[in-house]
């Protein structure tokens, strides 16, 4: 039996020799910045285990027994692919992450408050197929607003063939907060009252004002839940998610506009009830609202009281869409953002639209987005491509590090891939 100590030393000596070569290479390389002790600052919560004695590949490995079946080998383009990534980025980064012209992929923002519903099978037995539809009039409920939801079961997936159902039980269910589970009990009815549009039409409705419910006084992650039976005893549990504002966190009390740096700046005059990080969004349209031009987002940390928030529509979109002003700004909205999960994000809306001054599209810059972020990212991509083309690799580094439950990063010695 081998001495465990010598068994530990052998790879250590090999590692040390490799490390000497690596250190020499690093010393000779002028392109690398000087070493620092820690992988990250304390603020990130990640520290690097430095002592070699602490390296325990098995302890650090994500799994004690990792399956290694014979792999298949893929060939890929490497530098060619990295170039493809660069080109795709340059194409996308004509616009910044915070404001873009509308395209087919982003037009969903024009119906930003429409719930993303999917019709699902209630009874899938052959010949008895029914589907259910659990919908609501909004996905985000601002302070004081109501959410009206309704349930329908359709024969053969036909919305015109509604079936009678029994809503056995329904609640607002919380998935976060001190006591996840049932909060507000709900009644779904088909009597033409209190949110139900038409009596007896087999559409069962409920109207709820979250901000009036004591059990929803904290902003929780919630969904509507209904246990529904129908069709010879078939039962399902339905879900419909929404967010809500239990209290007023911010009010938009005024709006103005200007051209700034070739962009359209929408300046919101806000009255902040709670200090914190806030996100803002808005859509800009042609004056008559018929042409969707673009969207903008902004984030700002705000203290309590009055403040100004700029939501910047990137100037290039106006020329690209070929639309002169005045412009209609709509869907002005936002949320208080809780980044540590202490509450769910709290939505707010501006209940009206805003019309800008009569700018001409030529008043705005047609330039592409430019910023240190973009410049830096592109420079890194180009360096990688150049390295790949030249066959250069970086300095020797651990091939794998694992960050454990305590935030400590440890090198891992992966077993060689078997082929």
């Amino acid at each position, binding site marked *: 039996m081998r001495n465990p100590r010598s068994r530990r030393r052998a790879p250590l*000596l090999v590692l*040390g020799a*490799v*490390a000497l070569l*690596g*250190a020499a290479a690093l010393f000779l390389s002028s392109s690398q910045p000087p*070493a620092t002790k820690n*992988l*990250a600052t304390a603020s*990130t919560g*990640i520290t*690097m285990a*430095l002592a*070699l004695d602490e390296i325990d590949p098995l302890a650090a490995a*994500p*799994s004690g027994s990792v399956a290694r*079946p*014979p792999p298949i*080998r*893929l*060939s*890929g*383009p490497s530098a060619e*692919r990295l170039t493809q*990534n660069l080109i*795709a980025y340059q194409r*996308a980064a004509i616009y910044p*992450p*915070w404001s873009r012209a509308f395209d087919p*992929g*982003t037009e969903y923002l024009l119906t930003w408050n429409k719930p*993303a519903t*999917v019709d*699902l*099978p209630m009874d899938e037995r052959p010949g008895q197929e029914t589907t259910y539809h659990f919908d609501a009039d909004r*996905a985000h409920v601002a302070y004081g607003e109501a959410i009206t939801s309704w349930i329908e079961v359709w024969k053969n997936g036909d919305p015109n063939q509604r079936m009678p159902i029994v809503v056995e039980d329904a609640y607002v269910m919380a998935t976060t907060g001190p006591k*996840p*589970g*049932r909060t507000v009990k709900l009644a779904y009815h088909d009597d033409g009252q209190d949110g139900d549009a038409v009596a007896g039409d087999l559409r069962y409705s409920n109207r709820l004002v979250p901000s009036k419910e004591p059990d929803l006084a904290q902003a929780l992650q919630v*969904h509507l839940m209904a246990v529904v039976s129908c069709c010879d005893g078939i039962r399902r549990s339905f879900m419909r*998610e929404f967010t809500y504002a239990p209290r007023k966190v911010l009010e938009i009390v005024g709006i103005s506009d200007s051209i700034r740096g070739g962009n359209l700046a929408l300046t919101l005059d806000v009255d902040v009830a709670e200090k914190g*990080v806030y*996100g803002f*969004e808005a859509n800009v349209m042609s004056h008559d609202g018929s042409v969707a031009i673009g969207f903008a987002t902004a984030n700002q940390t705000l203290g309590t009281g009055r403040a100004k928030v700029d939501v910047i529509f990137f100037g290039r979109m106006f020329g690209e869409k070929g639309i002169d002003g005045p412009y209609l700004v709509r869907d002005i909205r936002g949320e208080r*953002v*809780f980044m540590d*999960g202490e509450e769910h994000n709290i939505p707010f809306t501006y209940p009206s639209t805003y019309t800008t001054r009569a700018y001409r599209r030529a008043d705005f810059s047609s330039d592409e987005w430019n910023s240190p*972020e973009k410049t830096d*990212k592109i420079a*890194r*991509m180009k360096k*990688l491509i150049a390295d*790949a083309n030249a066959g250069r690799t970086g*300095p020797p*580094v651990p*091939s794998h*590090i*694992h*960050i454990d439950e305590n935030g400590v990063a440890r090198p891992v010695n*992966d077993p060689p891939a078997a082929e």
Partner: protein
Amino acid sequence: MRKSVFAAAAIVAGMFVSAPAFAGNYVVFLQGRGWASWNGETVTAAGWTSVTLAFNGNAKLDGPETNTTVKNAISTYCGTGTGNSCVIHCYSAGCLRMLKAVKDLRAGGNTLSGLLFAEGSGSAAGGTKLAELSTTGLTKYLAKIIGQQEKIDFDLTTGAARNTWSSVQNGFGANFWQFGGYKDICKSLLFFKICGNSYLGGGTADGVVGMDSYSGASTAGAITNGCNAAKYSWRIYDSGPYNDSSGNNQTPCTGAARDHFGEPGLGTAMLGADITGTGLDYKRSWGDTTGQTGCTGTACDATFTSTTQNFSLTPSGTSVATSVASTSSNTTAHTTSGATCYGHCGGASNGCYCDSACAGYGDCCSDYAAANCSTLNAP
């Protein structure tokens, strides 16, 4: 003398293991639901370090797993001012965690200029119908097919992913390449089988997630071509080509020949090919080979034929990642159509409840604790 040489080597080796302190190149791996570690398949490339993280993929989205562990890792290895360059490989629910972390970092002023691109394997960032649709025994199909109910399931409905978390979807700011598979996952139950794609509403799917999610499509629905789908900003369907030894592209627009379990391996191979020109894929899958017919009604709530199955294991029982079974509610060994909390934590069961309020109402199912609902219902 030998001792001093050893000491010198150790000192220099110590410098070596601290090499990540230099500006470097990193691939950060973010596991999904069902795993508490990455699956062991990482990128091996000179000058690049694979970074894996210990976090519970079962945990809710808006918790320390996302808001601290994932966010800190992205900040450390991809952040502006670090000098690092990084690629993120996210899998399934890990992609929704990535999007939230990136959104929060950006909101906090970190523009992540070191983030070169992300690769999403079987991204569940757009949600899955299996997290919403229940059996007639009120068990979500996601919980049944994967063999355990997890806390993250409440974030993976289509409505939660696209409405509750809508603000994280559209502002990634770097290319987010995505792909997924078309292979179904069927699991053998006591008398019948249960197959994920049967409930994913037509279109292409990988047994757990539909192409509408894993392609980055901005609208839920049945789609069969990931390249053509209208997508959230910065999303691209990754159609390669990544060719096997026969010259066949493994990631066509119509989906890869993988199920949900096999996608992260293929994704890692694709990243290996991106960086080095070659990559290795272990081509795993999680479906059972069975001649059973598909279940209907309460038959879909039956126990698995092999009750020890777990998504962290291959069907033959080999571990690929750290299990999250201890924080999940098992559905492989329990019939879930009766008055049971297995697979029903946080909600209603059949004649009783499994949420944290049930003790107050006096209507908890008798197996509330055994089903692990105390853990799943913890704040």
